[in-house]
């Protein structure tokens, strides 16, 4: 059972679902207030969705300087699993823990609906319970979700298999290369715009998101997922 710290910023609004999803997957989740400086021996850290600081200045720009973020960065540097969902992804980009940035959707609309994404990287602590190439349905809800990065960064992300999730069957926000999620070079820091915590139970209309959280409880989930090809006897994609 992994200790999962879910960081709460002023304006976070998805922390309850995120804690529920982690608990349903068998983890031991708990909240950490953004003014704390201690992650309380977290194995895993998640920055949830929302509108931290009202999205003032830029989405995530102010939250990245919250006191807890020093501990979050140290956790990431030590190779600890760190996931940013939606606003959490924006914060990780602003903090420089993930490359690139997330800017205004290309059609000037806040987009809130289920989308199809393809799981392209399964060698991360948050996607190892999916099969590579698996297509899933997950909800998005964002106004600033268009992923941008300079050409060398994009080339590196593609060449190194660091595009974690990619939109398929339509690009809802104009993201470069239809990118819905990326990871860092160490594959331990992941950012995704869709909300897996909002689709993890049949009563919510589906459970395509639950494997994000089950991945954490997979055997040795913090190790490189090359060790995780067979979890529970199932082939997990090479």
């Amino acid at each position, binding site marked *: 059972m992994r200790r999962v710290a879910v960081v709460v910023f002023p304006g976070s609004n998805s922390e309850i679902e995120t804690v529920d999803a982690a608990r349903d997957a068998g983890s031991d989740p708990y909240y950490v207030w953004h003014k704390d400086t201690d992650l309380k021996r977290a194995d895993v850290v998640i920055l949830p969705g929302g509108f931290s600081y009202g999205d003032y*200045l*830029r989405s995530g*720009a*102010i939250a990245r*300087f919250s006191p807890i973020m020093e501990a979050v960065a140290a956790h990431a540097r030590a190779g600890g699993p760190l996931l940013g969902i939606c606003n959490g992804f924006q914060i990780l*980009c*602003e903090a420089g823990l993930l*490359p*690139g*940035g997330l*800017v*205004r*959707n*290309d*059609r*000037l609309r806040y987009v809130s609906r289920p989308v199809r994404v393809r799981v392209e990287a399964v060698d991360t602590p948050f996607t190892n319970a999916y099969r590579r190439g698996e297509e899933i349905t997950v909800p998005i809800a964002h106004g600033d979700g*268009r992923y*941008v*990065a*300079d050409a060398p960064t994009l080339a590196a992300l593609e060449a190194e298999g660091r595009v974690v999730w990619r939109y398929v069957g339509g690009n809802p926000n*104009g993201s470069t290369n239809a990118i819905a999620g990326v990871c860092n070079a160490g594959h331990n820091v992941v950012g995704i715009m869709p909300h897996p915590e909002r689709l993890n139970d049949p009563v919510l209309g589906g459970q395509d998101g639950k494997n994000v959280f089950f991945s954490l409880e997979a055997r040795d989930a913090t190790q490189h997922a090359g060790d995780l090809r067979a979890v529970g006897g199932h082939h997990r994609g090479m």
Partner: protein
Amino acid sequence: MPDFRVEVRVMPRGGILDPQGQAVTHALQALGFADVHGARVGKHLVLTVEAASAGAAETRARAMCDRLLANPVTEDYQVAVVPA
């Protein structure tokens, strides 16, 4: 030390699609301003900075831009110190 008025202009980087600017362009054209061929929308910040000199105020403001006010991935900025 005196206060200086520092004006910071933050713009979406050239080459990055600016949907707000496009929407403003289309709205102006719809209003009959057919001579508008483009608009880009950025931010204008006015800071009051205590410093020994105008140059020192500008140096501080640039540090603020690099740290917080502009995102180096998506935005460019200009700094101007104007008489308070």
